[in-house]
C-alpha cells in the first residue's frame, strides 16, 4: 500500500492570479515564470526586485521572506552557448547573449494564502550585485550576508555587508563552484615544513574592540520599521546619561556562553544594562553544504544529521523529502508512519534539552538533570532502530533504512507513559516557581510584527500568537491525518521566555498524542518500509544471490547512485526549532548541484540582537536559551 508521491503542499491558492497581478504591474520587468514540481518561480530583473518584493509584502500578503540563497551555474555558464536554459534574454537588459552564472533565489511565504513563491535574479560573473531587501524584510539581513560570504554576491544598500560565517580575512567565497572543497592533503610526508606550507595561516582570536558595532559610522543593528531595537537602545542609554559613565564592550563567547554552543555576542554595556548586542557566528561553520555536493544523493544523508544535532532525524527527513519530490518517488505508508513517530520523539528530545538548558542557565540545575534523564530514553529508542544514539541517518530516500526491531512498540509505549508523568513533574517544578517566573516573565518581549519581519519560525513565531505550523498548514508524511493541536500564544500577543517554555511543554504533550496514534497505526500497517523503486532504493540483500537484475541495481546504486532530473525543489518541514527547508538543486548528475539548508536557528538568531537592548547582562543567557539555537544548525 502506498500513498501518493509527496507533491507540493496542498496549495489552493490563486498562483495564476498573483502572477497576473505581478505581470500587470511590472510587465516586462519580469522575465519569465515557470513551474516545476508544483513550485512557482518568477525571474525578475534585479533593479526591480525591491519593488516586486514590496508589492508581495504589502498587496499580495506574503508576510515572510523565508530564505535567500544563491546557485552557481559555473559550468553551465562556461559551456555557453548551451547554458542549460539560463540566459538573459529579455526585459530591460535587452538581448544580452552573456549567460548568467549566478542565480539568487528568494523564497516568500504567505500565511494568509498558505502559499509559497520564489523570485530569482540572474547575475553575470563579473561584480554580481543585487539591491538589498533589508528595508522591506528585516529578516533578509543574515541571509544576504551569508550569500555574500559564500557566493560573493554583493547586496547594494545592505547596512552591514560583511562576512558572517567565515573569518573577516578569508580569501574567496567557498560555495562558488570554482572554489575547492578543501586543500588539505593527506600527509604522505613527515617533513613538517612541507606539511605546514599547506596549512592555513592562523588568525588572531576576536577581541571585544573588533569594530562590530560600527562600520564607517553606520550602526550595525537594523531597526525594524517603526523603532524596535533602536528605541530600546535609546531607553537604556537614557538611564545612564552621566557622561563619565562610558559604555563598555565585552565578548560573550565564543567559548560556550551558557549551554548553547560556540556563539559569540559582542555586547555594548552601560553599567549592567545591555545597550547593543550583535551575534557573531561562524565559529562552528563546517562546510556541510559544500560537502554535500561531493556525495551521491544517498550518501549525503549522513551529513545532514550533523547540522541540527539535537534533531538529527528531522534533518534526515527534510532532505529525504526534498529529494523524493525531485525524483517523484512514492513512500510506503509504513515508512511514513515511522517517520512521523520518530520525528515526534525527536521533537520531545530536542525540547527537553531546550527546556533543561534554559532552566539551568537561569539557575535551576535540577531541571537540566531531569531533562537529560528522560532524553536518555528517547536516545535508547533511536539506538534501537538505527544503532546510533544521536547520528541516526535512519531515513532513506524512499523510506527508512530498516524496519523497527521487535520490542520497539513496547519501549515507545513505556516512553509515552513515563513522559506524561514527567511533563507534569516539570510543570510542578517550574510553573509556579517564583524565581523562574521572575526571571522569565516579560523578559525578551517581542511582537508578531517583529517575528514576521525577522523571518522567525517555529515556537518563536507561535509565541507571538501566530498560529503557523507546517505540520498543519502544509502537511507532509500524512500529518494531516493525525489528531493534534498546535499550541500558540492566545493571550498576550507577545513572546517572552516564559511563553516559549510554556509552548515547548505543551508541544511535548501534543507530540506524545501523535506518537500514540502513530504507534496504533504501525501495529496494523504491514508492508515494506522503503520504496520498491529499484532505481532509488537498493533491493533486499537476499535477492542479490538469486536475481541478476537486483545485483545490477545494487551495484549501480552503491557505485554511482541515481540521477534526478534537472531542476530544484524547496521542501520545508517543521523541525523542533521551526521551518527547516532543503533546497536541492540537481544538474542531472548523480551528485547534487547544490543543497541549500534553510535552518531555523540561523534565522531565529536574528531575534537576539533585537530583544537584548534594555535587558541586564544576566538576562542574556536566558535570551540565548529562549531563541533555542543550536550552533550546528546556525553555522552548518
Amino acid at each position: 500500500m502506498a500513498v501518493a508521491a509527496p507533491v507540493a503542499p496542498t496549495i489552493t491558492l490563486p498562483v495564476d492570479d498573483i502572477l497576473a497581478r505581478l505581470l500587470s504591474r511590472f510587465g516586462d520587468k519580469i522575465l519569465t515564470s515557470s513551474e516545476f514540481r508544483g513550485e512557482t518561480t518568477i525571474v525578475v530583473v534585479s533593479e526591480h526586485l525591491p519593488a516586486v518584493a514590496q508589492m508581495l509584502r504589502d498587496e499580495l500578503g506574503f508576510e515572510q521572506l523565508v530564505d535567500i540563497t544563491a546557485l552557481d551555474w559555473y559550468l553551465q555558464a562556461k559551456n555557453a552557448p548551451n547554458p542549460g536554459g539560463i540566459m538573459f534574454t529579455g526585459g530591460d537588459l535587452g538581448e544580452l547573449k552573456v549567460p548568467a552564472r549566478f542565480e539568487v533565489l528568494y523564497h516568500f511565504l504567505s500565511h494568509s494564502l498558505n502559499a509559497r513563491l520564489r523570485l530569482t535574479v540572474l547575475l553575470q560573473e563579473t561584480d554580481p550585485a543585487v539591491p538589498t531587501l533589508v528595508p522591506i524584510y528585516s529578516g533578509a539581513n543574515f541571509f544576504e550576508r551569508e550569500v555574500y560570504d559564500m557566493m560573493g554576491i554583493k547586496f547594494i544598500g545592505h547596512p552591514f555587508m560583511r562576512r558572517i560565517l567565515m573569518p573577516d580575512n578569508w580569501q574567496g567565497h567557498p560555495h562558488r563552484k570554482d572554489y575547492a572543497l578543501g586543500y588539505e592533503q593527506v600527509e604522505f610526508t613527515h617533513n613538517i615544513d612541507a606539511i605546514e606550507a599547506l596549512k592555513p595561516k592562523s588568525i588572531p582570536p576576536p577581541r571585544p574592540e573588533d569594530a562590530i558595532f560600527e562600520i564607517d559610522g553606520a550602526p550595525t543593528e537594523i531597526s525594524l520599521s517603526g523603532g524596535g531595537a533602536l528605541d530600546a537602545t535609546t531607553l537604556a542609554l537614557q538611564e545612564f546619561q552621566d557622561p563619565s559613565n562610558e559604555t563598555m564592550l565585552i565578548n560573550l563567547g565564543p567559548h560556550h556562553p551558557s549551554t548553547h554552543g560556540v556563539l559569540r555576542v559582542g555586547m555594548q554595556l552601560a553599567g549592567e544594562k545591555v545597550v547593543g548586542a550583535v551575534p557573531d557566528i561562524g565559529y562552528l561553520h563546517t562546510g556541510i553544504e559544500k560537502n554535500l555536493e561531493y556525495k551521491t544523493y544517498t550518501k549525503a544523508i549522513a551529513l545532514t544529521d550533523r547540522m541540527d544535532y539535537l534533531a538529527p532525524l528531522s534533518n534526515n527527513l527534510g532532505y529525504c523529502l526534498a529529494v523524493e519530490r525531485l525524483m517523484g518517488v512514492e513512500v510506503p505508508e509504513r515508512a511514513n508512519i515511522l517517520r512521523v513517530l520518530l520525528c515526534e520523539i525527536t521533537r520531545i528530545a530536542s525540547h527537553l534539552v531546550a527546556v533543561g538548558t534554559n532552566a539551568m542557565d537561569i539557575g535551576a540545575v535540577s531541571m537540566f538533570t531531569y531533562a537529560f534523564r528522560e532524553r536518555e530514553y528517547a536516545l535508547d529508542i533511536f539506538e534501537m532502530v538505527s544503532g546510533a544514539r544521536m547520528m541516526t541517518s535512519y531515513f532513506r530516500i524512499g523510506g527508512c533504512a530498516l524496519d523497527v526491531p521487535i520490542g520497539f512498540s513496547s519501549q515507545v509505549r513505556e516512553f509515552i507513559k513515563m513522559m506524561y508523568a514527567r511533563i507534569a513533574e516539570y510543570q510542578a517544578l517550574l510553573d509556579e516557581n517564583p524565581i523562574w517566573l521572575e526571571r522569565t516573565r516579560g523578559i525578551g518581549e517581542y511582537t508578531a510584527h517583529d517575528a514576521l519581519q525577522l523571518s522567525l519560525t517555529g515556537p518563536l513565531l507561535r509565541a507571538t500568537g501566530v498560529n503557523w505550523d507546517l505540520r498543519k498548514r502544509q502537511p507532509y508524511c500524512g500529518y494531516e491525518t493525525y489528531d493534534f493541536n498546535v499550541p500558540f500564544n492566545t493571550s498576550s500577543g507577545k513572546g517572552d521566555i516564559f511563553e516559549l517554555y510554556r509552548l515547548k511543554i505543551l508541544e511535548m504533550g501534543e507530540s506524545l498524542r501523535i506518537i500514540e496514534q502513530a504507534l496504533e497505526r504501525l501495529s496494523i500497517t504491514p508492508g515494506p518500509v522503503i520504496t520498491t523503486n529499484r532505481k532509488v532504493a537498493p533491493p533486499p540483500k537476499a535477492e542479490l544471490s538469486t536475481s541478476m537484475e537486483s545485483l545490477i541495481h545494487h551495484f549501480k546504486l552503491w557505485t554511482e547512485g541515481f540521477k534526478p532530473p534537472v531542476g530544484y525543489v524547496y521542501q520545508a518541514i517543521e523541525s523542533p526549532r521551526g521551518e527547516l527547508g532543503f533546497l536541492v538543486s540537481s544538474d542531472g548528475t548523480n551528485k547534487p548541484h547544490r543543497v541549500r539548508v534553510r535552518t531555523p536557528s540561523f534565522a531565529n538568531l536574528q531575534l537576539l540582537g533585537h530583544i537584548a537592548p534594555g535587558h541586564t547582562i544576566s538576562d542574556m543567557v536566558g535570551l540565548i536559551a529562549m531563541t533555542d539555537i543550536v550552533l550546528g544548525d546556525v553555522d552548518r
Partner: protein
Amino acid sequence: MSNQVIPANQIATTQQAKTGALGAAFFKLEDAVRWARTKSMWPLLFGLACCAIEMMATFASHFDLARFGMEVYRASPRQADLMIVAGRVSRKMAPVVRQLYDQMPEPKWVIAMGDCASCGGVYNNYAILQGVDEIIPVDVYISGCPPRPEALMYGILQLHEKIKNGEPRGQIKIENWGLRG
C-alpha cells in the same frame, strides 16, 4: 619498607576512612602527586558541536561522571586542567581554542573527543581543522561520531592511567602555530 610503593587506591578501606583511623603509608612524593592529580581534575566547560551534547549527557544524571570525580566543570580556563575538545574545530574557532589552552595553568591535559577533533572526521574541507592536534597537544583520542558516553568515560580513565604512570604528554604537530601572523 621505605622503598615499597603502596598503590594509592589501597591506602584506606572504607571502614578506616569512616573511623578516621587511616594509618600510615609510604610512597614516592611523585606518585602521590600524580595520584592526587587524577582525583581532582577540573575539565573546562567547553563544547563545540554534537560531541558536546554527548559530553553533557555523560555528566548528567544517567551516566553521572561524578562517579569518577570529574563533574566539576569550570567555565574559566584559569581554573581548569583538562580540556575536552568535544566537536569539530573550525578555522575560525581554532585561534580561540588555542588561546583557551594557553590560558589554562600547567599541568594540563587535552582529550580530543570524537572523530572531528581527532582527525577532521568526515569533513575534509575548507572549514574544518584536520584534527585539533594541529594546534594543541592531545593526550587521548576518542573515536566515534559522536563517541558514546561510555567511550568518553573510558578515555578519561585512560588519561588517568597515563598521568598515574607518568607517561609523556601528547605532541603538537606545529609548535608555534598560534604565534604566526
